[in-house]
C-alpha cells in the first residue's frame, strides 16, 4: 500500500523580496558605512571631519574677493574670506614669469602645440600625426626663445640630410651599418661645422622669419615648470632605457660605468645637483664658457630622473622570465632586435606605473629650481608675497599653485592607469 501524499507542489514559489535593510540605499549604507560598531564610529568621525573642513572652506572660497587692488583692501572689506585678487592681479606672472607681456601668445601657442604633440604619443589611434611630435621640440624652442626661424630649422635640415645620407649609403654602396653610420655622422658634423652657418645667413637674407629674442632668465611660472618638466621627461626616457640596459649588460666596463652613474645620482638629493649646475659647472667646463642656466637645469633634472628611470626599467627587465631572452636568442635575433621586438615592449609594460611615477616626481621636482633663484611658481609666490600690496597673503597663492600641479600630476597618474588597463593582456 502506498502512503498517500497529501500535497506536492507543482510550481516553484516566487522568491520573496530581500529585506529592506539589505538592498537599495539602506542596504548600501548598512554594508558600506555601518557594518559594525567600529565602522559606524569611523563613518561618523569622517563625516564630521568633512563637514568641519567644508564649513570653513566653502564660505571662505565662495565669498572671495577677486577685484581688489591689495590685500589691505580685501581685509577692510571682509577679513574672513579669500582674497583671490592676488590671482587676478598676478595670474599672468604665475603662468609666464617675466616673459614680455606683448609676447604672451608665444608660450600659450607652445602649450597648445604641446597638447597636440602629445596626442599621437598618448593615443595610438592618432599615430599618423607623429611627424608633428617630431617637429614640435624645434618649434617650441623657436617660439619660446625666439630668434631666427632658420637657425632652429637648420638642425632639422642637418639631421635629415645625415639620415638620408646614411640610408642612401646602405642602399647603394655599403653593407656594413657601422661604417655607414660613422660616415653619416662625419657628414653631419661637417655640415654643422662648415655649411650650416652660411646657409642660415643665406636663408635669413632670402626669407627673414624671426621672433624677438627672449632670454632664459625671463622665463618663469608654469611655463618654466613645463619647459623643465617636459624636456626632462622626454629626454630622460631614452637615457633611462640605455642606462638600464647598460646595467644589465655583461660587458663589465659598461656595466660599471652605468652602475656608478645610477648609484651616484640616486644617492644625492636633486638640490645638490642643481647647486652643482648653478655654482660648480663653471669649474668643469673650459674657462670662459657660460651656457644658459635653464639648459643647465634641464640637463641636471634629466640626468637625475634618467637614473631613477633606469632603476624602474631594470625592475621591469628583472620581472621578465629568462626564457624570453633565451627564446629570442634562439630565433636568431641580434641583441638590439630582441631588445626592440621582444624584451623592451614587455619590460616597459610591466614598469608603466613606475615610469609614470618617475615622471610625476620629476614634474614636482621642477619646483626645486626656485631654490637656485629661478622663477618657478613657488619662487614667484615668495616674490609676490614680498610685494607690499600682497604682503601676508598665503593660502590663495598656495592653493592655486598646488591645484595646478595637482591637475597635471593627477592627470598623468590617471593616464597611466588607463594605459595599464589597455595593455593588460592577461585577465
Amino acid at each position, binding site marked *: 500500500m502506498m502512503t498517500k501524499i497529501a500535497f506536492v507542489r507543482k510550481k516553484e514559489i516566487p522568491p520573496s523580496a530581500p529585506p529592506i535593510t539589505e538592498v537599495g540605499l539602506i542596504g548600501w549604507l548598512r*554594508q558600506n558605512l555601518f557594518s559594525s560598531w567600529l565602522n559606524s564610529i569611523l563613518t561618523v568621525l*569622517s563625516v564630521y571631519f568633512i563637514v568641519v573642513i567644508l564649513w570653513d572652506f566653502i564660505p571662505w572660497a565662495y565669498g572671495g574677493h577677486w577685484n581688489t587692488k591689495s590685500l589691505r583692501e580685501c581685509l577692510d572689506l571682509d577679513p574672513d574670506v579669500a582674497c583671490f585678487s592676488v590671482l587676478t592681479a598676478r595670474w599672468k606672472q604665475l603662468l609666464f614669469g617675466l616673459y614680455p607681456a606683448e609676447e604672451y601668445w608665444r608660450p600659450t601657442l607652445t602649450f597648445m602645440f604641446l597638447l597636440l604633440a602629445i596626442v599621437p604619443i598618448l593615443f595610438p589611434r592618432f599615430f599618423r600625426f607623429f611627424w608633428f611630435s617630431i617637429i614640435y621640440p624645434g618649434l617650441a624652442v623657436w617660439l619660446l626663445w625666439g630668434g631666427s626661424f632658420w637657425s632652429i630649422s637648420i638642425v632639422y635640415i642637418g639631421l635629415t640630410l645625415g639620415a638620408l645620407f646614411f640610408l642612401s649609403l646602405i642602399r647603394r654602396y655599403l653593407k656594413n651599418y657601422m661604417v655607414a653610420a660613422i660616415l653619416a655622422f662625419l657628414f653631419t658634423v661637417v655640415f654643422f661645422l662648415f655649411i650650416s652657418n652660411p646657409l642660415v645667413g643665406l636663408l635669413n637674407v632670402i626669407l627673414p622669419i624671426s621672433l624677438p629674442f627672449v632670454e632664459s632668465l625671463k622665463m618663469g611660472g608654469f611655463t618654466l615648470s613645463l619647459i623643465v618638466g617636459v624636456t626632462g621627461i622626454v629626454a630622460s626616457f631614452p637615457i633611462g632605457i640605455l642606462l638600464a640596459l647598460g646595467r644589465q649588460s655583461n660587458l663589465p666596463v659598461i656595466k660599471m660605468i652605468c652602475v656608478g652613474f645610477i648609484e651616484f645620482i640616486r*644617492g644625492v*638629493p636633486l638640490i*645638490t645637483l642643481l647647486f652643482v649646475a648653478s655654482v660648480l659647472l663653471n669649474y668643469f667646463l673650459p674657462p670662459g664658457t657660460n651656457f644658459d642656466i635653464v639648459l643647465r637645469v634641464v640637463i641636471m633634472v634629466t640626468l637625475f630622473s634618467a637614473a631613477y628611470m633606469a632603476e624602474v626599467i631594470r625592475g621591469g627587465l628583472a620581472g621578465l622570465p629568462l626564457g624570453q631572452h633565451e627564446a629570442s636568442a634562439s630565433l636568431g635575433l641580434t641583441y638590439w632586435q630582441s631588445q626592440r621586438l621582444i624584451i623592451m615592449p614587455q619590460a616597459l609594460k610591466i614598469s608603466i606605473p613606475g615610469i609614470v611615477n618617475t615622471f610625476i616626481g620629476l614634474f*614636482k621636482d621642477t619646483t626645486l629650481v626656485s631654490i637656485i633663484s629661478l622663477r618657478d611658481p613657488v619662487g614667484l609666490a615668495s616674490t609676490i608675497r614680498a610685494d607690499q600690496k600682497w604682503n601676508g597673503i598665503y593660502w590663495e597663492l598656495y592653493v592655486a599653485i*598646488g591645484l595646478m600641479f*595637482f591637475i597635471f600630476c593627477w592627470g598623468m597618474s590617471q593616464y597611466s592607469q588607463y594605459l595599464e588597463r589597455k595593455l593588460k593582456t592577461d585577465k
Partner: protein
Amino acid sequence: MSSPTLPPSESFKFSMLLSDTRYRGLSLQVITFIIFMAVFFWLVDNTIKNLALLDKDVSFNFLWLRAGYDINQRLIPYTSDSTHGMAALVGILNTLLVAFVGCIIATVLGLFVGILRLSKNWIVAKLMSAYIEGFRNVPILLWIVMVFALLTEFTPAPRAFKGAEPEATMLFFESVAITNRGTYFPAPVLAEGAYWLLLCFGLSIVAVIYFIRYANKQKKDTGKSLPTFWISVAVIIFPTLILFFAMGQPVSLEYPYLKGFNFKDGIHLRNSFLALTLALAFYTSAFIAEIVRAGIMAVSKGQSEAAASLGLRPNKIMSLIILPQALRIIVPPLISNYLNLTKNSSLAIAVGYMDVRGTLGGITLNQTGRELESMLLLMGFYLAVSLLISSFINYFNRSFQIVVR
C-alpha cells in the same frame, strides 16, 4: 658518415673587431673606456685650469677654521667660535634628526592611512584616497612652505598668553604652548637616582625579550601560547613605576612658562623644524600608505582563506599569515622611501632650518668660497647615507626573500 665541413678559417681583418662577436664586446668596452677616461680627464683638466685662473687650490683646511656664524638649533654644543667642521657636524645631526623623527611619524601615519584605505567603509576609504592623492600630487616644497605658513601665521604670539584673560591658552594642562615662535614642551629633569630608574627600565626590556623567547619556545614545544602582549606591557610598566614612586619621583617635568615676551624653559621646537618634519612626514606617509596597501593586497586571498580553514582566528591570521608575507613586499620600498625623506630634508633651506646643506653647503660654502670641497663633502655625506641604507635593503632582500630556484 659525413663530417660537418668547417668554414674556411678566415684571416683576421680589422673590421672583425666590430663585426665579429668574439671581439666586438671587448672592442666596444675599450672604446667606451677610452671615451669615458677622455671625458673624465677633460673635466679634471678644465677644473685645474679654472682653479688656477681663480688662484684657488683644493684643500680641506677650512674645516678647522673658525666658523663665525651661529646655528639656532643644535644637538651638540656649538658657538660661533667653533670650527666649520663642527658646524658641518651640527648640520649633519640636524639632518639626521629630521630624518629620524620624520620617518617615525611617516611610518605610523602611512600604516594607518594604508590600512584604512582598504577599509570596507566607503567614506573612510574615499577620504584616505583623497589624503594620498592630495599629498602625492603636490610638490613637497609647496607642502613645506604651506605647513610653515600654517605654523607661523595661524598660531598666537607668545604675548597672547599673557594677562588675566589671555587670548590663547596652553594645551594639555598648561604644559604645551603652540606659538608662532615654535612649540614648547615640558622637559624631563633627571634628579639624583634617575639613573637607577633608567637602569630598571632597561632591565625590564631585556626581561621582556627573554620572556618572548621563552614564550615562543613554549609554543613550539607544547602548542600553548601565553598572553605575551599583556605580560610584556606589565613587565615594562610596573617595576619602573613602582621604583619611581619608591624613590620619591626622581624624574620631574620642567614646564615652559611665560617670561617677558617669550617662553622660558621646557623643550623648544622651532617652527622651521616642525614644519620641515611634519611636511616631510605627511608627504612620505602618502607614499608609504600606498606601499602598505599594495603589500597587503599582494598576499593572495587564498592565504587568508586557507588560514581560516585551519581554524585560526582573524587576528592570528593577520599576525601569523598575512603580515609576514606582506612585510616581505613592504619593507624594501619602505626603506627606500626613508631614503627619499632623508634626501628631501635638504629642502630645509626653504624654511631656514640649518641642516647639513644649510651649514656646510650654505653658509660655510659662501664664507670660505670653497664650493668644490664643500659640495664634495656634502655629496659624500648623502651618498654614504644612501649606500648604507641600500646595503641594508640588499641584506634584507637576501635574508627574507623566498628562494624560488
